[in-house]
């Protein structure tokens, strides 16, 4: 199921890439060699696609989503924060969240710099055309990773004071991007990697992640239940938490790092 979804996501990514700059950069004739030489199975691209897939799923099943509109899940206190910088970043994040309604635009704008560069290199290599070089150059020059949802959420998370940060422990209250960015800030594990660790249901990696981030049992259960409303109260959560709470948080981080680096993702 996960692999199927991943495959679909990569296909849609390919289509979106082709649609975005069809006249100059990409044409369907370029995709076949890219797939053949393995470029479109590169782990960074797959991780990116997989993370977006999980992000969309978490977003759609988040408790309280109905009450808060579609994607704009930001604590009102951040939008009206007395620190102008925070309020400004919160508003920019809202705008970025609106923009990703357009998936083809979102794929470029949400991509980390390294990945966009890699893709542009692959395309230039396959195309061998001056026109393509010029268009790719324009795409890279215009790219601003800092204005992506993840980029803004990270910056917002960076400047939060400890009281505001308390709200980021509830994904329903803070929204998925700030919840993830805050976990990244505390644990040092990358935003997309956190999404993959969370996955599609409440498992050991997610429990360990919350433990590593210093969540209490009650906070962890609250966060997990907001993302996975079907989580059994006395079943999965209790069992998993009782296992991870015996592990020292520092060891938890080591284990998670080893886990995520050992996990080779293949479609």
């Amino acid at each position, binding site marked *: 199921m996960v692999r199927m979804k991943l495959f679909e996501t990569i296909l849609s990514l390919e289509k979106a890439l082709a649609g975005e700059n069809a006249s100059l950069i990409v044409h369907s004739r370029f995709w076949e060699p890219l797939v053949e030489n393995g470029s479109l199975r590169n782990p960074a691209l797959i991780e990116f696609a997989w993370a977006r897939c999980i992000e969309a799923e978490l977003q759609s099943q988040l408790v309280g989503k109905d009450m808060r509109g579609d994607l704009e899940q930001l604590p009102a206190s951040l939008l009206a924060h*007395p*620190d102008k*910088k925070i309020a400004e970043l919160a508003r920019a994040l809202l705008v970025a969240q609106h923009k990703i309604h357009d998936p083809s635009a979102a794929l470029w704008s949400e991509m980390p*710099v*390294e990945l*966009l*560069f890699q893709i542009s290199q692959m395309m230039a290599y396959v195309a061998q055309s001056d026109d393509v070089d010029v268009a790719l150059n324009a795409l*890279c*020059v215009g*790219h*601003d*990773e*800092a204005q992506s949802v993840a*980029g803004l959420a*990270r*910056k917002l998370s*960076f*400047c*939060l*004071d*400890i*009281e505001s*940060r*308390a*709200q980021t*422990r509830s994904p329903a209250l803070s929204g998925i991007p700030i919840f993830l960015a805050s976990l*990244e*800030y*505390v644990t*040092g594990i990358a935003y997309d990697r956190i999404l993959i660790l969370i996955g599609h249901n409440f498992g050991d990696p997610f429990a360990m992640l919350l433990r*590593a*981030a*210093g969540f*209490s*049992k*009650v*906070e962890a*259960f*609250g966060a997990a*239940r907001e993302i996975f409303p079907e989580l059994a*109260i*006395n079943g999965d959560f*209790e*069992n998993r938490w*009782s*296992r991870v709470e*015996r592990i*020292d*948080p*520092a*060891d938890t981080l*080591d284990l998670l790092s*080893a886990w995520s680096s050992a996990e080779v993702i293949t479609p």
Partner: protein
Amino acid sequence: MNNTAFLSVPVEGLVSASGNLLKADSRLLQLQFNAAGDEHGPIAIPGLRAVAAIVARTGMRVERHVRVGDFDADIDLWVEAMPQADAVLIQITGWHERAPSEPLTVEPQSDGPNLVLNEHYHIVRMPHDLEGADQVIGKHFATVVELRDIAVGEVPMLDLLARRQSLEDLKISSISGSSQFSLSLCPLTSKDGHFLGYSGRLDTAPDNGPNENVVSDNSSLVFGRQFAPILRHPLSRIIANAETIHSRLRGPLRESYAGYAQDIANAARHLSELVSDLEDLEAIDRSDFSVAVDTVDLVDIARRVAGLLALKASDNLMEIHVEALSDPTLVNGEFRRILQIVLNLVTNAIRYAPGGSTVSIMTGLDGRNGWIEVADQGAGIEPTDQERIFEKFERLGRTGDGGSGLGLYISRRLARFMQGDLAIVSSVGQGTRFRLTLPAKTV
């Protein structure tokens, strides 16, 4: 408010395409020196070096959070880096010093719900500032508190909950009567009208004494409740910092010093294990100690333990081999206690068996019992010592290996609490085999 996060004037530096620091403001230069770098040498701060390399390679602007380990604090930097002609301009616009690797310990919002009960009135969320709050998660609410001034026990509370109506500022107390609370609850229902539980607030009543007895039967757990957390916290910090030094995450370090850091981490881990053992020892020696009865698959336990300790075994050039049945071996017992016992047995095997040997974990069913065995290829144990090793603090004369002499004592006690046993079969020169037996799950 965190008014130290963003700087009014950015701290700047220029890094060449090859990664050398060309010029830097004094604060950045100080970080470079602290990381054992030179004024015009390669940039020695790993996070900044990575950001500069990305910008140099891609020619694109990036903004990233970079954490720098300085002498006595971690520094969170917000770094904006942009390409220049044959160089990368680094601007540090955010600078936030904090205690190293401190997990968050913030309180939840004061005005939101802090108590959640499920549809069976079991506690899902409790105010975590109440001592013992974690221990009552999952318990029936009426077994933890009672209505104040009503001596009948849990029935009136249960009766009140069963009405599924809002409760406002109800005066209640812990079962022991030592803590008084104010309770407000709102029933939760699904879209199709099903009762889902309650959400509300449990606040300490203002005229109370200290609120320390939500769980009434733990007052004598002096070590586990009072000292263990105090000891564990600094030990965790020592381990984390020593491991960071050992892994050279904060910059280059001589091999011998990295080795000393590893020694420190290992010693602190041993102390941490000892704290856990003493905590368990205190708990299991109490007359009211009990274990939960779940259905546990020993095959699953075997695989989990092998997975958890594979790295530790490979550090000692050893392998863990699981010879488990393909079908589940279901027994009655508490999952985490069984896991604890088997982890202890395999850890001992790794500790005492020679490098290059194999530790085997086997499972099976035998009549009305399920069993899991851990066998090593070590020196074995003399027949006269085989019962002694289950005694408290018995080390058979071994020292300096990090053991506390409590693991097997605790393991056997736990096994017996679960109506099972832990036994040993060993011959000198032919390794040691421990067998944990537990009552099989009856259909």
